């Protein structure tokens, strides 16, 4: 096996468990540990980390992976989050490459933006297809974002560790 293949294998060995751990916590642990009626989103935080530390390509790839897992955890039959997080990863990576300094404040900013966008993506079908009023939905988006922000600190260090490997 060549060096390049070894490196790809190492990336897979590191990234797959990292994403799966976040998926397990997001879909199997936190739905039972709701605070103020909401559970946090963890997978978008991994996308923000990959975009910040590794740029647009890694942001896109991790975005696809995280999106698939998000759709699974939301019981979605569609691929809304697969597309959204992939695009968000690429765009966020491009912004991080050109504008932001690699550090926790930048990561926190990226996470807040991404979490709000995720909330909007989740609430749009309810607003446009089912006529749900925006205000209660915004309340849930806000609570979801605040709860998720607690997890930026551990996931920042995990993302930084993973970025050094990949």
């Amino acid at each position: 096996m060549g060096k390049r293949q070894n490196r790809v294998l190492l990336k897979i060995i590191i990234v797959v468990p990292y994403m799966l751990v976040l998926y397990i916590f997001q879909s199997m642990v936190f739905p039972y540990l709701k605070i103020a009626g909401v559970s946090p989103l963890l997978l978008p935080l991994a996308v923000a980390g990959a975009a910040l530390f590794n740029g647009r390509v890694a942001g896109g790839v991790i975005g696809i992976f995280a999106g698939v897992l998000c759709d699974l955890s939301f019981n979605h039959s569609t691929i809304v989050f697969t597309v959204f997080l992939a695009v968000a990863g690429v765009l966020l990576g491009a912004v991080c490459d050109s504008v932001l300094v690699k550090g926790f404040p930048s990561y926190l900013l990226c996470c807040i933006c991404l979490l709000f966008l995720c909330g909007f993506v989740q609430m749009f079908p309810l607003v446009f297809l089912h006529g749900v009023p925006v205000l209660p939905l915004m309340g849930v988006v806000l609570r979801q974002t605040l709860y998720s922000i607690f997890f930026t600190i551990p996931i920042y260090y995990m993302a930084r560790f993973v970025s050094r490997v990949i």
Partner: protein
Amino acid sequence: MKDFITKKGIYIAIAAVVIAIIAAVSVAISGGRGDLASMLSQPFFRPLRSAMTALVDSLESIYNYMYSYDEMEAENQELRNRVAELEEEYREYTQMSQEVDRLRELLGFSETREELKFTPVSVISWTASNFASSFTISRGSNAGIELYDAVVTSTGYLVGQVTGVTASSATVTTILDTTMSIGARVYESGGTGVAQGDFQLFLDNKLKMAYLSEDDEIIIGDTVVTSGEGGLFPSDLVIGYVESLVASDSGLEDYAIIRPAADINGVTDVYVVTETAIGGTEVR
């Protein structure tokens, strides 16, 4: 020796007589229970003897403890294993007992609804979304579960509807979800409407019954059941109970707030209605 006895004989004899007298007196005083030597020595030797006995007993117990330690450890381990086995048996028994209770409830319910066929399933996981109410169940199309099958508790309370199926699992959207609409009827008055999820009520684990007729006489506490209209749900499955009535100015948008009969967020084992035969004809 001869000289010694000759010279000191008299003293020895006197001493012997004195000792004999004292001994005789002491025996007489003690009633023949002991001799002088033992009487004199007891106050000194009794504590010593007691201490020695205690020491020997301690040494003996230590010896026994060391000698039988392995045996005791093995026995202890065996007892621990036995306790673990009994605890496991107790857990299994509790689970089986709960399952029996559920099946007994279902049997009671299914006897009243012979046209329905139920498939028992377990809830695997709940959605991570804060905007929806759905869960994944342990069986899918291999067990005969199909899209839009109704899902109930063992007592026949409506929980939701199958909205996604794979071979080995299925997704159930609960009646609290904003996307759900169910043809409903008030059991007491016969008034009809649509039980539907409402996002604001969903946060309080409730739903509403809309499109009520002005003529309907609905009272708080009335039972809301499925009407069976539309063919998606079998009729007369209990949805919940009227908790309050909300009137609009025009009267066109009056609705009732319904508290679900089933503990939606607490369900762990549910039953999918896989067949609904009415008058011998299977409908879905």
